[in-house]
């Protein structure tokens, strides 16, 4: 089957958008990669177990109810907003001596190294860390097909 030119265009656009969003490809070779190489927020790590992938992101000060997490096929999207702390309190800053913490809206997309069971993805938030468990799809185990005889 030959792909229509329209489909090629869509594919090109998709790749361009991928680049534009500076999403991180977990599938990219990462050997020797140093911390914060992508300069993207939030910092993340990926672990792989026999049955699931685990993604953990550092999101201190981001209220869990404002986090938005979605999985479509192999794309994991994490969005949210880190609000300045004093916005919610009465302690109005008069003079800043240090301002090292970041704040603002963020969105980050990741391409997972394999297909996951999107229906069973779960996430938990504790102490400013978001941990996402993505069960693998058991598609790599060969399925025996019985051959019917006439």
């Amino acid at each position, binding site marked *: 089957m030959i792909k229509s030119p329209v489909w090629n265009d869509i594919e090109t656009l998709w790749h361009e958008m991928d680049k534009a969003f500076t999403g991180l490809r977990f599938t990219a070779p*990462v050997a020797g990669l140093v911390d914060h190489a992508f300069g993207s927020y939030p910092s993340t790590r990926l*672990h792989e177990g026999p049955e699931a992938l685990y993604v953990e992101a550092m999101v201190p000060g981001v209220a869990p109810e404002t986090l938005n997490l979605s999985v479509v096929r192999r794309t994991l999207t994490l969005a949210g907003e880190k609000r300045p702390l004093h916005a919610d309190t009465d*302690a*109005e800053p008069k003079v800043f001596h240090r301002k090292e913490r970041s704040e603002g809206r963020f969105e980050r997309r990741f391409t997972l190294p394999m297909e996951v069971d999107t229906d069973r993805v779960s996430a938990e938030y504790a*102490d400013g*860390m978001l941990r996402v468990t993505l069960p693998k799809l058991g598609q790599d185990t060969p399925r025996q097909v019985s051959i019917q005889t006439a």
Partner: protein
Amino acid sequence: MSEHNVAVAEPPKATPAAPANGHPEHYMSPPVDIYETADGLALVADLPGVSRDNLEVSVTHNVLTIKGHGPQKLPGKARYQEFQLASVFRQFKLNNALDTDQVDAELKNGVLQLRIPKAKATVARQIEIKVA
């Protein structure tokens, strides 16, 4: 209270001694915001993965120390990592204009918020004038 008045220096670069298990432990400096409010000084530190039980905040001889142990282990094998499993350590020198006995600390969503009130002696006291 001027900026110089509450200058917050960070003299010690020395990291704490290696823990008892003999493995060299990595320490990182957590990012902080420090600002003055009407009542005193507020210090906000991002400490992701540091639970209340793993955090130690102390003031000794006007030196504020924040020390904590970072993120817990994740199941499976590491495939990709953008952050180190480091402990956090940072010290600040507080000046005498602050009342270090009244430090209020709160840890929420991985963010430590300290409020250090001004010392009583530095707060302007209104003196009532009696009319004879």
